[in-house]
């Protein structure tokens, strides 16, 4: 890999940096497969499959009914076609909707009982599922950050949660952090109260599908006034072939609470595409704050556009109480197709929503991503910073909505979306919708599109920096505002990912 070789040759480059970059490897690093005995539900989607998924999770009757209603609804709907993405028709009957490792048939009581192969999988991904080990974020070179911060992990493997770390310690603080299947069994009152209230079953085609067949995902409840003692994270791994992953995440931040939540995802390298359709719902009560950070690194397909994950995701936060705050940060480097619009409903007065995004597409990747800021309450504020980078034959679209309702007096929005094009065969597009229905609110939208600046390139090259490395540097500078919004461990990983994702895009 050119970048690493160049860097080794140079003096003065911090050896640690070199190692870190080398570690994240050349091409897609997570393309390997875990050889493990799996148990599948039959291919295709029928009411029986829905019931089967429900029974595998030992769900109560009301949950099964909820799913079946979603399934009925799904049958009446058609796939949306408005996004600037182009992919072969998905055969929804040719997908496994449920796949779990055989060893998970009897749910392990603790992490010690989990199949070593599974633990090894996560260790290899840089996610050691042992509490004494401290995580360095999703990517993690295995090194612990200096200050020794703890991150609790819920590890989801295909359709099931393998285990959740630090549960006991979190419980002491009153925080519930578990898989959603466990939450449905153990905390039905909370799930019943909140599930589907932010993203209704009928929200959109993929959300409806997810509502019918979601198999696992994470559940978080932070009680009033609690500042979650550590960062929470979920790591999603797709392993089985021809399997769709449909996870569901529900986060509730009660009054005055705070949580920072991280999400990471990878999948093996395959010639066939795979579907991932997730739903994330976040409820934020008065004075509470949620930070949600994603590093999405699903397999993007090869350089000819073969294979890769189709990522159709619905994420939405509902700031229900006054002064509630949400911050979405996403680094989207993976997936063949991305269709994703993490949104904020600013219902409470003085609520705040922020969205920071870097989407990098290379080769034949396509991303149509952005956000919706729905201002309903007075004095609500939102900020959107989106950086799209296109290389190779990729298409990258920012699509967003800022809506100021008549009652959202004195609200503010600031949007900045910038696109960078590397090469003349890719595309960068901006499709913002701006709807302002009162005059005391101020909305500002700015967008620019440019290429990597020749002067900056020249400056770097003149100082002996290799071409690819120079592009990575410039792109990191371009994306700085977003990278800074990430928790520290993620930011480091994201910077490295930026370089990796653009590999081969120059020259």
């Amino acid at each position, binding site marked *: 890999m050119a970048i690493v070789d160049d860097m080794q040759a140079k003096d003065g480059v911090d050896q640690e940096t070199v190692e870190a970059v080398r570690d994240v490897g050349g091409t897609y690093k997570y393309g390997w497969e875990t050889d493990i005995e799996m148990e599948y539900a039959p291919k295709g989607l029928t009411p029986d499959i829905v019931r089967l998924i429900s029974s595998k999770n030992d769900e109560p009757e009301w949950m099964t009914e909820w799913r079946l209603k979603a399934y009925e609804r799904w049958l009446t709907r058609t796939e949306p076609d408005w996004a600037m993405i182009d992919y072969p028709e998905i055969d929804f009957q040719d997908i496994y909707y449920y796949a779990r490792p055989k060893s998970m048939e009897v749910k392990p009581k603790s992490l010690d009982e989990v199949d070593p192969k599974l633990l090894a999988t996560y260790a290899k991904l840089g996610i050691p599922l042992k509490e004494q080990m401290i995580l360095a974020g999703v990517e993690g070179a295995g090194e612990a950050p200096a200050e020794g911060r703890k991150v609790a992990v819920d590890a989801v493997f295909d359709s099931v949660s393998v285990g959740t770390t630090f549960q006991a310690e979190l419980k002491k603080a009153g925080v519930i952090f578990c898989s959603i299947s466990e939450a449905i069994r153990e905390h039905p009152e909370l799930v019943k109260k909140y599930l589907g209230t932010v993203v209704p079953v009928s929200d959109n085609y993929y959300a409806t599908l997810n509502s019918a067949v979601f198999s696992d995902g994470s559940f978080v409840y932070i009680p009033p006034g609690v500042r979650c003692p550590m960062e929470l994270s979920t790591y999603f791994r797709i392993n089985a072939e021809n399997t769709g992953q449909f996870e569901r995440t529900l986060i509730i931040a009660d009054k005055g609470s705070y949580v920072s939540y991280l999400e990471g995802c990878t999948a093996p390298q395959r010639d066939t595409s795979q579907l991932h359709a997730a739903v994330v719902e976040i409820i934020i009560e008065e004075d509470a704050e949620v930070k949600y950070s994603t590093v999405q690194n699903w397999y993007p397909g090869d350089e000819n556009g073969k294979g890769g994950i189709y990522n159709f995701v619905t994420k939405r936060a509902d700031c229900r109480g006054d002064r509630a705050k949400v911050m979405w940060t996403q680094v989207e480097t993976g997936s063949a197709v991305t269709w994703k619009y993490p949104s904020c409903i600013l219902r409470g007065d003085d609520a705040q929503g922020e969205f920071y995004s870097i989407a990098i597409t290379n080769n034949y990747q396509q991303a149509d991503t952005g956000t919706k800021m729905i201002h309903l309450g007075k004095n609500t504020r939102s900020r959107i910073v989106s950086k799209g980078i296109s290389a190779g034959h990729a298409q990258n679209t920012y699509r967003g909505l800022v809506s100021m309702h008549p009652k959202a007096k004195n609200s503010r929005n600031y949007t900045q979306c910038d696109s960078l094009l590397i090469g003349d065969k890719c595309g960068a597009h*901006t499709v913002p919708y701006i709807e302002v229905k009162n005059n005391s609110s101020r909305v*500002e939208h700015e967008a620019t599109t440019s290429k990597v600046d020749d002067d900056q390139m020249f400056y770097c090259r003149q100082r002996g920096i290799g071409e690819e490395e120079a592009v990575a540097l410039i792109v990191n500078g371009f994306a700085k505002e977003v990278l800074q919004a990430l928790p520290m461990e993620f930011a480091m990983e994201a910077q490295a990912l930026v370089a990796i994702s653009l590999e081969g895009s120059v020259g």
Partner: protein
Amino acid sequence: MAALQENQSLTEARLAQVPPQGAGWANTARGAALARVRAMGLPQRRDEYWKYTRPDSLVQVEAPKAALFDHDTGSVFEAGERLKIVFVDGVFDAVTSDDLAMEDVTIERLSEVTNTDIHWAKDVYGELEARGQNPVARPLAALNTGLASDGVVIHVRGRVSKPINLIYIHNSTGSDAILHHVIRLDPGTELTLMEDGPAAARLNMVLEVDVADGAKFHHVRSQGRDHERRAVTHVFARLGAASLFKSFTMTANGKLTRNECVIELTGDDAVAHVAGVAMGDGDFHHDDTVFITHDARACESRQVFKKVLRNGATGVFQGKILVKQIAQKTDGYQISQALMLDEDSQFLAKPELEIYADDVVCSHGSTSGAIDEEALFYMRARGVPKDIATDLLTLAFLAEAVEEVEDAALRAAINAQLEGWLLRRRG
């Protein structure tokens, strides 16, 4: 399925109007246009391109009634020398129009040239409109091509000594005008075209402009002061190398206005500027929809749209810059802004960029909000009464768009109208 049938029957009802019958080439163009309408269907509320503007009253068979504006309605461009061509409720009026003969230009009525077998207009009429149907359908423009009975056909062969002024008089409360103009500018020529007036209770106007290499076309338009009139207009322009196209529209009042502008930059180094100011008070819905395609190298495009809204007025902006792969060194700029003078008004915008070339500079901005309280305070602290200060700040807000009018006299005429509009609403 039901929706589709409903649309078909709606379209058929509208097409029941018999197109003008002629003996010449135009029959083919009209037939093709009506076939396009049938294929596309007329616009409906559900259409994404009509997300912010209800097309119903523009589509329905009968034009809704519109009261005449009973104040002084003299031409906005009264002061300057010009060649006047008058249409009353969409029909050419030979009595009040000037003699159409002028040096360096040939002006003919559409109804005359459509009866000939061979005419240059054949290559433009409906042709630019048809090109403009992709990638977004504009069925009301095709409907116009199919049904238009009047208009002018202008061939510019040199630097025309004085501007041509199309004056549109609205004289009947139920009039339904369909006007279609075609302009061809030969290489290196120049023309200024003014349009002025509401035209009819309902106007559907198409202007096709073919600007050859090195030619310059200036377009300054005022859409009259009638409150109840409705209008849908389309300007289709094709620009050759190093040519210039500048279009400015002032809209004050009007119940419903949809101005579409579709520009194709096909020659290197061409320049296209489209600008507009809209002033709305009360029952006012104004929609600027612009689509600029860069299909050649080193072209410049600029869109500047400003709206002043009060008493529940609605402003819409849908602008798009499409940069094709070939269009390296493109410079694209787009700004849409709304100034809302009270709580009830709304501004809906969709400023889009679609870019397939890497060596480009494209930017867009969109803002909306109330008048700047700090600036207002500053002026009041210096003894400027509130209403005057508000008007001055409003004019300053509009200035960037008005400056797109190159001719100083025309700019002054526009400013006088804007000041008058504000003055009448003072206190």
